[in-house]
């Protein structure tokens, strides 16, 4: 009953994955290229070019004197960071919606109105967030 692929279908509904083949090729090419660059710059070129002068200090994360983590690296971060991140995503998505609209926009009053309504909805959210004091770092 279950077989792999859809090769046996009539041409009209031919393999639906086929149009994505160029994407796969591009992906493989990108992987190969990326792998080569990493290998060449991290292993091959240093081996050919760099001077060999090993020192213990070079193995530390920061050579410039900043002390290493003395305590547990798992620390509590200010909750404000998360809040800002969430709000950023919210308004970032708004911008993501605006872009395709702006590309298609041809001085059409109706579509302008629709986008205005969308932005107005987000504006209410913005005012709410502001009123709650979520945008103030120090409280």
């Amino acid at each position, binding site marked *: *009953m*279950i*077989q*792999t*692929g*859809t090769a*046996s*279908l009539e041409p009209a*509904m031919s393999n*639906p*994955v086929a*149009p994505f083949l160029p994407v796969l090729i591009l992906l493989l090419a990108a992987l190969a290229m990326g792998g080569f660059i990493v290998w060449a710059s991290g292993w091959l070129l240093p081996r050919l070019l760099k001077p060999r002068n090993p020192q213990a200090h070079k193995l530390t994360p920061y050579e410039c004197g900043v002390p290493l983590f003395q305590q547990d690296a798992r620390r509590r971060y200010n909750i404000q960071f998360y809040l800002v991140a969430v709000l950023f995503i919210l308004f970032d998505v708004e911008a993501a919606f605006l872009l395709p609209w702006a590309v298609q926009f041809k001085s*059409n*009053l*109706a*579509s302008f*109105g*629709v986008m205005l309504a969308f932005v107005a*909805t987000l504006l*209410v959210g913005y*005012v*709410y967030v502001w*009123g709650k004091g979520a945008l103030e770092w120090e409280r």
Partner: protein
Amino acid sequence: MSFAQGLLEALTKDLPLLYGPALLAVAATLMLWPGDRFVGRGNKKAWAFVAALVLLAAGALALTAPTDEGFNRMFRVDGLTKGFQALCVMGGLITIALSQPQLNALKEQTVEYYALILFSVCGMMLLVGATDLVSMYFSLELMALCIYVLVAYLRHQERSVEAGLKYFLLGAFSSGILLYGISLLFAAAGGVTTNLAELNGRLALVSANGSLLVYAGVLMVLVGFAFKVAAVPFHMWSPDAYEGAPTPITAFMSMAPKAAALGAFLRVFGTGFQGIASDWMLPLAYIAGASMVLGNVAALRQQSLKRLLAYSSIAHVGYMLLGVMSGDAQAGAQAIWLYMLTYLLMQSGAFAILIYLQGKGEGERIDDFRGLGRRQPVLAFAMMVFLLSLAGIPPLVGFFSKFILFKLAIEQGHVALTVLALLTSAVAAYYYLNVVAVMYFKEAPETERAPMGSLATLVVTVSCALILVGTFFGFRLMDWMGRIVLG
């Protein structure tokens, strides 16, 4: 047709379909801003009345909406939509009523609580009418996102926050699986449509020749939905989320989102993917059977009534999935709707009593019900009615809804599963009756009686009365549910 004309047509023809949910969204937004600016810190309680009125109005608008399809075939109003929308609104109203004692006692009354309930009911109302996988997904997310926040609402209680985080992580994960399944189906159907009816036709063609893509896609969609209704083996979040959430929200989660998700389940599998039924029927049968067995067996060992109700709701979902598997979508929808309606009555009553006892600092553990029959005979009697009805003991309405569902399943040829359902119902009777026995036959230290809130009394009285009255009408209920007409 120009864009302006199209917009005009959408406003005049399509928008009336959505007056109910639209009212909820607009009202909730206005409540948050600027509404809340004018309400003092001590008067936030008033929002409960506003929210209840808005819910009532939205319910009335939804029930009177024209029967039609709109928004580029993304949303459809028919008997299924209206019936399940009514259930969601009822769930929201009951939750607001039950929330009052706890929110007042903890001084946690805020406008956000009610706005979140309205937003999530809005998502549910959209969900049951969604006839396109995209509109379905986004309304599912609207519903779920609000509930994640509501579960973690008591943010000073570790338990509540933990439950919220668990629910959120698992919910987000399951949404991802669902979305991936949708994208696979979209690709398998040639990448031109996500409309359920069109998708069904195209997928049936592809699937007839055997396609792993369709199989994988429909399974992932099935997994996503099983997560949302908490069916085994995708139920792991539900006992923890139910236990940690504020008890009124636990009641909410076991009523409204479940009704909405089952409505969407019916829409997607019962009526939508009929053409590829052979791909999902067997996995769904396993999910339903596992839910019945595990839900009921795990409930046997619970000490906390909240967890007991969580596991038993997993089992009830297992029964209701029998209706989704029915080849006759209309009969399945009617049976599930009736089951959900009676389930909603029984759950709301049981939770009202649970919340009352919790307000006195007890009630979560089954042991806290010791001697309730002597201390508060009326309350204990109501609790007994709810529990016996949940167990499906004749002649209470819980029996009739189970009977209709099982009869349909046998007619459709799911005999083995129905036998399993009957056997596990017998198991279920044990743990429900155990609570009754604890109430009546165990002695308890004398404690003073606290007054029960008027709203909670109302909920208990109404649901108990409806269950008892429904008992005398039994099969007449079938005429009533005949109104859930598809199409």
